[in-house]
């Protein structure tokens, strides 16, 4: 079977979801963020505060589509996968330049991808692990040779870590090692994205200006972006961030607490956006036979099933997300490619839960604990609700509030009983989430100690399966097994809550979390 897909070059098609108003140009968009970025290197970063804005500064060969499930042309205008699935050939866009006006060459592409897939660099190189060599067979062409067929290689080329950076400018930066150069370069970067970093007051304000050399065309036939600049203001306190938006000092604000969503929906000056996401919220259960030398009731599948049925997700969605969340149908969000689900998992059924507990090895119940992030209202709200719900099947739940580093340590050591957790995908493919959730060699299935040989072998097979129908079947079976016997209590999916002034248009946060400002514009007075 030949897999041959070429894409339309037209950048107008890219922005097909056009608002009714005509775009206007100019202005600075001021956007309130809950936390500042840490380190803006596409390869060496490790936090969402970096990942979610990096795509404004660096373009990838292909770009993720706005619905987060497909790919669109980026610095490459099209791609072709060979019949045996072992090579990807990409056609580079002509006459493209970095933000300093220097040309983006195939050498920059080869260097950037080689840096991104180097196992010594950062924590994202696994996304390109199948790549064995990147070459340029002829001018304007890039060939990626694989060591095995990789169904996720095309979406991997849209992920932030495979962004194209200027080799010459990077190597000219101060420092001996790649990490030192990256630190120096990140202070004053040259990018390939729609915007470029101009100044950065740590912890306070980041200023991006438009890249005059950006390649993509806007709806009006001129080059993107529409905005002259973006200012990110760091406002950690939710109430202050909203107040600043309402007083008109911000054009947009992210991470609106769900408790405030309805109020902002009713505010006539504000557009309350709930962007579809891949954000799933769940409880991870440690299912090892023993924890700290003691018998672990959570290792009993009947107990886990009982706890799942005793969890009233609808009630938690109402109390914690104020009705904004939706029940999960699989461990992966429904926006993930190949997600399969027919209705909410474990609909609330207390009687059934009680029956299951009676059949289990712990008919009289037991005591256990859950880790909640100290000061986090959602974590505490979920834990308190579960304490009450599971009390009805004889489980005495102790809530332990800890800080993030403490929680991570207990999690990694496998010494926790349960924890509240959340996940978003970084790639439009089910492989990443499944590797962490279900495939035991990666991190012991969410450090839970859960292991299923069929899942492990299906996952391994699916990683090199390029027949879509076969891979879909493999994933249907993996999800069936994990969703019915896995180490989690699925709770709900939530969108990304972003509040914007009414005169702001064209901004999107895609399901993978990336904030995309290149199509954003502000109505001028």
């Amino acid at each position, binding site marked *: 079977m030949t897999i041959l897909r070429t894409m339309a070059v037209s950048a107008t098609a890219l922005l097909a979801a056009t608002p009714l108003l005509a775009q206007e140009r100019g202005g600075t968009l001021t956007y309130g963020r809950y936390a500042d970025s*840490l*380190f803006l290197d596409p390869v060496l970063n*490790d*936090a969402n505060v970096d990942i979610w804005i990096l795509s404004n500064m660096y373009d990838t060969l292909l770009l993720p589509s706005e619905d987060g499930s497909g790919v669109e042309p980026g610095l490459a205008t099209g791609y072709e996968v060979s019949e045996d699935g072992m090579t990807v050939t990409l056609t580079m866009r002509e006459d493209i330049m970095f933000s300093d006006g220097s040309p983006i060459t195939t050498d920059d592409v080869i260097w950037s991808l080689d840096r991104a897939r180097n196992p*010594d660099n950062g*924590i994202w190189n696994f996304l390109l692990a199948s790549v064995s060599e990147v070459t340029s067979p002829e001018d304007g062409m890039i060939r990626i040779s694989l060591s095995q067929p990789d169904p996720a290689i095309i979406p991997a080329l849209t992920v932030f870590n495979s962004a194209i950076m200027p080799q010459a400018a990077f190597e000219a930066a101060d420092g001996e090692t790649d*990490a030192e150069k990256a*630190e120096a370069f*990140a*202070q004053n970067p040259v990018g390939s994205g729609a915007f470029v970093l101009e100044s950065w*007051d*740590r*912890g*306070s*304000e980041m200023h991006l200006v438009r890249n005059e050399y950006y390649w993509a065309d806007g709806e009006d036939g001129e080059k993107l972006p529409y905005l002259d600049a973006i200012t990110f*203001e*760091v*406002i*950690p*306190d939710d*109430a*202050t*961030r909203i*107040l*600043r938006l*309402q*007083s008109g*000092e911000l054009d947009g604000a992210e991470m609106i607490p769900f408790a405030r969503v309805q109020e902002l929906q009713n505010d006539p000056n504000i557009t309350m956006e709930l962007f579809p996401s891949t954000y799933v919220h769940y409880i991870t259960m440690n299912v090892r036979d023993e924890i700290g030398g003691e018998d672990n009731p959570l290792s009993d599948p009947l107990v886990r099933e009982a706890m799942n049925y005793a969890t009233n997700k609808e009630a938690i969605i109402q109390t914690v997300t104020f009705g904004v969340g939706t029940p999960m149908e699989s461990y992966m969000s429904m926006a993930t490619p190949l997600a399969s689900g027919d209705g909410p998992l474990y609909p609330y059924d207390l009687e059934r839960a009680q029956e299951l507990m009676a059949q289990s090895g712990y008919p009289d119940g037991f005591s256990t604990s859950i880790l909640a992030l100290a000061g986090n209202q959602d974590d505490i709200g979920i834990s308190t609700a579960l304490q009450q719900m599971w009390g009805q099947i004889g489980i005495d739940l102790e809530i332990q509030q*800890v*800080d*993030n*580093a*403490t929680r*991570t*340590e*207990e*999690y*990694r050591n496998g010494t926790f009983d349960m924890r509240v*957790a959340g996940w978003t995908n970084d790639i439009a493919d089910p492989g990443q989430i499944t590797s*962490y959730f279900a495939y035991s060699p*990666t*991190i012991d299935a969410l450090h839970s100690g859960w292991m299923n040989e069929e899942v492990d072998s299906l996952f391994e097979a699916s990683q090199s399966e390029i027949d879509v129908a076969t891979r879909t079947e493999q994933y249907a079976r993996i999800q069936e097994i994990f969703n019915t016997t896995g180490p989690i209590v699925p709770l709900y999916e939530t969108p990304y809550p972003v509040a914007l002034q009414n005169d702001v248009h064209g901004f999107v946060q895609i399901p993978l979390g990336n904030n995309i400002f290149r199509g954003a514009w502000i109505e001028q007075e």
Partner: protein
Amino acid sequence: MPEFIARRLVQLIPTLIFILVVVFVLVRLLPGDPASAVLGDRALDADVERINRELGLDRSIPVQFWVFVKSFLTGDLGNSISLRIPVTQLIADRLPITMLLTLMAAAIALIIAIPLAFVAALRRERLPDTLIRGGFQVGLSMPVFYIGLVLLTVFGANLRWFPVGGYGDTFPEHLYHLFLPAVTLALSLSAILMRNLRAAIIEVLDADYVTFARSKGLRTRLILFRHILRNALISTLALFGLSIGTLLGGAVITETVFAIPGAGRLMVDSIYGRDYPVVQGLTVTLAVVVSITFLLTDLLQAWLDPRVTK
């Protein structure tokens, strides 16, 4: 007097060494490590080990301490683990903001506390006294973040007299932006200062030398400023100096509510992020700042009351 200052500065050295050792060990005793804190839940064991090795955290604590002391003596506080920039640069950027906020809060606290203390003391047990003390009681019992949000909502968002948080770009803008947070921070301190000063004034009012001054026929204003204020301030000043440390601590919450990129927020973020070099560098720097404040307070006290240096 120079000898007094020199003696105090020498005393500072063992204090700083002690703080250095304690913070170095304490931060490493906290559960979790920088690599896990930075990399988060998704990190693979190999990544965590690699990063800890790169940071030199796989070495024993005495060795790490030796490496730290060596570079500390050359003025190098290392690089922030999560932000990847020099700690000295971070402190130079963010500590002045907190210092300015603290100074403004201290000044506002004094401006509020001194006149009200006089009124309350001179109208002791009468309506003004009751009103002032009652008002402060209410103020003291409100949490700082709540006061901050109320001020922001009323004077920022509704009346538009002040910006809703942030720090501004120029010095006059800084003062303007910091006014509401400084008031927030000053309120609880002024309550404490007011009560202390009121008590001190009442004590002085009953002192023999004031009765004597009055009987000499000196003008009330002269008595108030030269005799009463100066003597009553001595104990309040000691309290004020000690409170600067508390103010710096209180800045953490205020900085978060008002979105001010100060050292308080940096400290909290660094502790949560297990960013050892930043926690160490900032703690030592703050210790120096607080010690110097105490020294200045002592000097001021010595000037008011020469018996102190003896």
